[in-house]
């Protein structure tokens, strides 16, 4: 019973995060939600007993893809006029935090 509840929560959370990530207005929000989705999917793989995929998903899917997306997001941001210099530095630190999770 408890296991079923955990599985249902994981599935609902994954779908919710996927929808939120796709519907997010800001690219940065979408990236953070996508990284969170990766971590949740890691838990789902672990629940399915696929430990190899769980480790790969955590390291590549959530960690490195998040870092790559954030770097690409900064490139997008640089193409705009450099109006958010201060906010940019702050958000870069936020990106590091999500990388270390």
């Amino acid at each position: 019973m408890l296991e079923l509840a955990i599985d249902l929560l994981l599935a609902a959370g994954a779908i919710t995060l996927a929808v939120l990530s796709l519907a997010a207005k800001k690219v940065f929000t979408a990236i953070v939600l996508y990284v969170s989705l990766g971590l949740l999917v890691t838990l789902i793989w672990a629940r399915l007993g696929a430990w190899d995929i769980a480790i790969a998903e955590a390291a590549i899917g959530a960690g490195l893809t998040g870092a790559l997306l954030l770097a690409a997001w900064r490139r997008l941001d640089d193409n705009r006029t450099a109006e958010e210099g201060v906010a940019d530095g702050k958000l870069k630190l936020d990106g590091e935090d999500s990388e270390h999770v």
Partner: protein
Amino acid sequence: MFDRLVLHETSGTKPALKSSTKIACGLASFALSGGLIAALLLSERAGPGLAALTASRMDESGVENPVTAVLLNFRSYDTLLEIAVLLIVAVAMLSMQPSATNRSMVEVNHRHSGDPVLAGLLRWLVALATVLSGYLLWTGAYAPGGAFQAGSVIAGACVALKLSGRYHFFWHPLKARLLLTIGLAVFVLVGGFCATGDKRVLEYPLEYAGMLILIIELAATVSIAAILLLLFTGLQDDKPDATQAGRPST
């Protein structure tokens, strides 16, 4: 979010889709996903799969973890091509890098006065990640783990180093190119040497299989880490003087 991406590439001249087109697209994707779900529900379950066959031949693989056995022995051709694909990505990315061949691979900016807390954390974190990566590589022989996971952990540690702002990586020196290619080179060499005698390519001799797999995975770990880090450093250009030369015109 996607309209913003398009906005930057076409500088805002693209008109919005007509509502009839939107409805048609929605109906089409709804029908497609409905058809896929119906096909999944209506089709019979596939057979037992290859798990039993893999389990029965484990003693020929040289390792104890079935996933590693399939990836590096039974279907090692797949993994070889995966690493080749990664190398192609690296070559494409390399052309966008600053072509300063006189730089060394890793440059430390001693004048950079970064966050001391971050520097202190990284001193522990990078060492921990390196040990963890070695553990993941070694444990791949009999438990979940392996080259891809180990390589991405090292790459993650190097991404953290790069983000600290003190370290810069350049990929045109010979040493760096060696790191990028060693995975595929070792894999091809080992596979080729196996073909001497009456065996086929990538058919490891039974008594050396475990050691050969470990050698291949070790080289692949190095290359995967280097290529993933190259992807990140290729995207992240924070120093105009360091990377402006190789930056593509956008």
